[in-house]
């Protein structure tokens, strides 16, 4: 059973079907959403685009869920899907090693070159000790996604999943289409 949805693109933010007003676009939109609706988690500014997107989208989603926040729990999984894995972070890191004359591999950039880091960021923020998983598929195929999410409930601990599509190609091009789904 799906409850609550958040859809963010570089131009629009829709929470539970209602358009959220904003001034900015692209990378600046994520910062605007952070400042207006969250504001108490400066680690946001260290994150790569995929993590910023997932963090902001999950915060908006959990705000409309309205349940008590930050209580340690193991019964909620975080499962995301996308097409481009950690492409934006990979490209950023590649730039630090591209030129042999100016070779400065950056650990701060390298740490984000795994798509599942965003699931960890959300687990840390919310004290979720449950399953975290990142799957890559070529297309945003609702049949494959719902099959995988249904499979996730085979873990007897898992009662709900914060999940969905979370993709970005660079800091200004991204899409989050995420939701909460409860075991039926």
């Amino acid at each position: 059973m799906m409850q609550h949805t958040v859809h963010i693109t570089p131009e629009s933010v829709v929470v539970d079907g209602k358009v959220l007003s904003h001034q900015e676009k692209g990378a600046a939109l994520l910062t605007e959403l952070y400042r207006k609706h969250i504001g108490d988690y400066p680690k946001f500014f260290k994150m790569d685009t995929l993590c910023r997107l997932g963090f902001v989208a999950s915060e908006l989603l959990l705000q409309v869920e309205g349940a008590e926040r930050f209580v340690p729990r193991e019964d909620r999984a975080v499962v995301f899907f996308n097409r481009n894995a950690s492409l934006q972070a990979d490209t950023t890191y590649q730039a630090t090693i591209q030129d042999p004359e100016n070779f400065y591999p950056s650990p701060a950039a390298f740490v984000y070159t795994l798509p599942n880091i965003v699931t960890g960021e959300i687990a840390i923020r919310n004290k979720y000790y449950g399953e975290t998983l990142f799957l890559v598929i070529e297309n945003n195929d609702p049949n494959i996604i719902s099959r995988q999410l249904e499979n996730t409930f085979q873990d007897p601990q898992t009662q709900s999943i914060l999940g969905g599509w979370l993709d970005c190609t660079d800091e200004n091009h991204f899409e989050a289409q995420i939701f909460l789904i409860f075991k039926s």
Partner: protein
Amino acid sequence: MIVKVSDNIISPLGISTAENYTTVKAGRSELKRHDGLWNLPEPFTASLMPREAVNEMATQWHLDEAYTFFEKMIILSAAKALEPTDIDPSSEKVLFILSTTKGNVFLLDKRETGFPKERVRLGMAAKQMTDYFHNPNTPIVVSNACISGVCAQIQAMRELESGHFDYVITVGADVQSVFIVSGFQSFKALSVEPCKPFDAQRCGLNLGDAAATIIYTRKDQVEDTDWVAIRGAIRNDANHISGPSRTGEGSYRALQAVLDDVSPDKIAFINAHGTATLYNDEMESVAIERAGLSNIPVNGLKGYYGHTMGAAGILETILSMQAVDDHTILATKGFETIGVTHPLVLSNQNQTTEKHAFIKLLSGFGGCNAALLMAKGGEL
């Protein structure tokens, strides 16, 4: 029950499971120091696959230069796992799951012009494999850092349990590149010496190339010789994106979940992640003690292969099954003196066992941890 049908390992230690097992049991490794390789300014020690050997094998399987080295590795490993079976990989009842962290990441280098750039997408790399086998299903790629190989097996179990497929071909692989080596070097995570899992002198990990495949199916009647995937679990530390939890939180919880009500006496050994970094090995010792498993032998295989990333969970599960079949607990190569604060039962010599089950344990960036309980004959 979910049962293993076939498996394969392609690594610098051999191109079949049997070759790999025999070599590991004999204590050999291909971990070598590389100075100036790929123009990297710092030396590193890694277990690298000879490219010529892969290319030669690829030609025999009609894989031409249109395939990248990574794609050749995954296709060859799957093909060799399929070879002794009568499974039709082109059937819609067969699913491919790929476990990898970086796939064809080398294509991001602007100097690489030999392949379409879209192949840097993990789904496109996986599609080269499903197209080769004429498989109609969208391959699922698990990219969950260093625990991907166990996550892929857990996904395979779930897909079979829910009856969507008759066979799942679970392939794990990563191949080393400037991108990966320089990244781990920047993290100060690499040892320039062969790694020393759980040792007092351990000073970091080594990297390695490998591809490994396990094919799973669902079976109602299990034979004594069948390997059964009993339970898997994935848990997060909720602590730090690149440092393990001091309380081993996620690893402990994953261990607890797979053990459930199984008596620890039934477990021959825990095949740990054992990367030989200070923090990983210490964290695993905390998690194993908290789970009440301190008396169970622990081993780690990174001293033979280095850290093979997306392959590790599958490769190490296969070798552990082989070891139990051979009544053996494989030695932890590189280990000499215990260097974790919570004592573990470790040895750098092969030991014998008559037990039939083991736990595969992994941890990775993003605070993720996974455990998998495997039992021969399925009874615990």
